[in-house]
């Protein structure tokens, strides 16, 4: 408030000066024009300066924390985090103001905070954005000295660290929660169809899904979130890896429309187009929870989901004993040059904004990545720990969690760590969404269509420069 008042008083001073300038000229029209211009310039300067100069630590013992939405609702996040934050306050004497931000708004909010300098002290980011956000220079750099303040580099799992920024550059975030993809299947539906074990490869997976599909009875093999650009780009990437495809070359230049990437997207689209094993809602589901509802209601027998899906399934009231988890099936044999990858290194990172209360922020990050906290909070979120000491805790040794942890540790690859990764996700992801939407109109999607979509996506990306 007082800042706003200050801003207003400076504005009026500037205007005062502008008025004096204006009265010096003779012609009235010229005077008005000059006046307007002067006022605009003055105000522009004032607002610009205010945008840059404000902020900074006001109270050394209070920080603001923007948490991402990990639970089934924003309220669930608040309920989970509040006792942990209270614990931190008890240990350090630092008070934390919590704001939970939905995923749809988080990137916008971070961009705004970066431009205005009016941001939180500590923020969660999607780990795939880390190279993009690193390029903005908005976050505190985790060089060795800074890492030392939060327990050193060695405490983190190597795969999780691979997704904290562009290779060769100082990371600007550290892992907080680990996630990976796996296949969830309905045990009863499998038993009814006479399927005794989860599919071991992609061919079996499609065959099982066909067996489980009976549109007349409203039963389908699989539910997807086909209108969610993030899910689509994940599968384009994961299947792309299995085909030996890359979206960026070594130098970081985009190479979207390669035959491998086209084949991977073809494989994904075929689930809807030719295999016809997906729920009708799959093309329309714009968020993962919508696809999860298809699974928990019994319409779909399988769903490909990240670790957090466990929470979403529980929220919908499905018992853990009713479903099984297996690694996502991989093509066998792999296409030439293909890699055994069935997940990207998914997860959430935590970062501190520059020119804020860095000391308190780092203490908080240290607390959140401590063993005790990693065990407690990842258990509550059904996420995976990102530090080795927490990963060895008995709590994470149950069969289900072990599958996710193994995938994360051995068969996951980081999304491209390039500065325009965020744009890569949106352009390729929305491209695939629109291909899926065209399937609804009964259109046959050819490889040329896929190639054209990828080429267009790449043009949008490079147009941005």
């Amino acid at each position: 408030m007082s800042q706003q008042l200050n801003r207003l008083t400076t504005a009026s001073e500037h205007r005062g000066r502008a008025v004096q300038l204006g009265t010096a000229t003779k012609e009235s029209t010229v005077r008005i024009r000059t006046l307007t211009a002067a006022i605009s310039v003055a105000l522009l300067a004032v607002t610009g300066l205010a945008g840059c100069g404000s902020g900074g630590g006001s109270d050394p013992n209070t920080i603001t924390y923007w948490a991402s939405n990990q639970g089934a609702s924003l309220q669930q996040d608040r309920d989970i985090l509040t006792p942990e934050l209270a614990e931190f306050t008890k240990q350090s004497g630092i008070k934390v103001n919590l704001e939970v931000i939905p995923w749809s708004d988080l990137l916008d909010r971070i961009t705004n905070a970066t431009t205005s300098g009016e941001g939180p002290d500590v923020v969660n980011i999607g780990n795939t954005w880390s190279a993009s956000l690193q390029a903005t220079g908005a976050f505190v750099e985790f060089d060795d000295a800074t890492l030392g303040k939060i327990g050193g580099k060695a405490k983190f799992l190597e795969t999780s660290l691979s997704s904290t920024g562009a290779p060769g550059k100082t990371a600007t975030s550290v892992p907080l929660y680990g996630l990976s993809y796996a296949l969830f299947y309905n045990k009863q539906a499998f038993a009814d169809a006479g399927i005794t074990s989860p599919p071991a490869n992609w061919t079996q997976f499609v065959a099982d899904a066909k067996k489980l599909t009976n549109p007349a009875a409203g039963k389908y093999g699989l539910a997807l979130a086909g209108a969610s650009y993030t899910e689509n780009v994940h599968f384009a990437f994961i299947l792309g890896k299995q085909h030996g495809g890359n979206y960026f070359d070594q130098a970081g230049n985009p190479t979207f429309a390669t035959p491998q990437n086209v084949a991977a997207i073809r494989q994904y689209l075929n689930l809807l187009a030719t295999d016809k094993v997906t729920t009708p809602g799959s093309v329309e589901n714009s968020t993962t929870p919508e696809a999860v509802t298809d699974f928990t209601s019994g319409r779909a027998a399988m769903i490909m989901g990240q670790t957090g899906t466990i929470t979403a399934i529980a929220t919908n009231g499905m018992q853990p004993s009713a479903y099984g988890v297996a690694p996502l099936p991989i093509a066998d044999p792999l296409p030439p040059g293909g890699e055994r990858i069935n997940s990207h290194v998914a997860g959430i990172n935590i970062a501190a904004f520059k020119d804020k209360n860095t000391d308190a922020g780092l203490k908080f990050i240290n607390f959140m990545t401590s063993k005790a906290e990693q065990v407690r909070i990842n258990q509550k979120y059904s996420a995976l720990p990102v530090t080795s000491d927490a990963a060895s805790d008995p709590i994470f040794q149950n069969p289900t969690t072990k599958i996710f942890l193994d995938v994360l540790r051995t068969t996951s690859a980081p999304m491209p760590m390039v500065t325009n990764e965020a744009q890569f996700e949106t352009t390729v992801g929305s491209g695939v969404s629109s291909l899926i939407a065209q399937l609804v109109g009964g259109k046959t999607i050819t490889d040329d269509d896929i190639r054209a979509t990828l080429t267009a996506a790449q043009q949008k990306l490079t147009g941005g420069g």
Partner: protein
Amino acid sequence: MSSGLSTAPPRRTTSPAKPGRDGSRKRVRKALSSRALPYLLLGPALLFELLVHVIPMLTGVGISFLKLNQFFLRRWLQAPFAGLDNYRLAVDFSSEIGLSLLRSLAVTLAFSAVVVSCCWLLGILGATLLQRSVRGRGPLRTLFLIPYALPVFTSAIIWKFMLSRDAGVVNHSLRELHLGSGETYWLLGDNAFISIVLVQVWRLWPFALLTLMAGMQSIPTDLYEAAEVDGANRWQQFRKLTLPMLAPVNQVLVLVLFLWTFNDFNVPYALFASSPPPSADLVSIHVYQNSFITWNFGLGSAMSVLLLLFLLVVTVGYLAVTSRRRHDA
């Protein structure tokens, strides 16, 4: 106007006991105050107009000449000057960026044309029916105004639920009424265009109704009486009397409806979030995508400026044509 009043010297001084300097100072003060008053009253509005509209707009124009991407977000005043590069990119119709902007513009124009026509037709129909004192006119008016009174975002999200394929009430009703399979995807493919037109017409037509009702009420009743004496039937009265008398109202109404529809962000965003299907890729969302989603604020601003210029040309052209026609009439 005020200067005319204030500069005229008073012929009589009210207090002859105090002539000279004192009186003239009072006069000057009075003259000053009456001259300043309109500006003082306009001051706050002007200040906020500057703060809320003009400055952000000028900033946007400024940004359109910058290469403002993630590398300069934090120090955006230091972003390198890009000259006309952003504009060149936006109108380069051989590349995907320019081509998709052009497509988006075409979709938006079609969308605006359909919405404005439907709103106006429904509005004039409703206003004509409600002009006569039919029973239940009051409640009907209130009922028709409800969509206009609801918060936009909330009602658009409710529409999204209603239009969903599996659980939506639209498909459910169609199935119950045996009007089709009830398995239509309303928010995907070409149907998305129909859906967004439907929601926008539902939301905006009450405004047309309200404006046209007010316009009709200002037409003197004796004109209708005279027309009736001359033997004009209702249709002739409507065509030869009501429509011409409504021309000034229509001129503004159509323009306002067009600008609102063309620029609307809320409805498409609530229905399709940031990735609308091509058939509903309205230009406001398109620009948003090109700046906020792909973090290319320079290009997004250039597109906005181009749209602003486009709308200015359309508006000026429209006003020129319609005004001339009215003067001719």
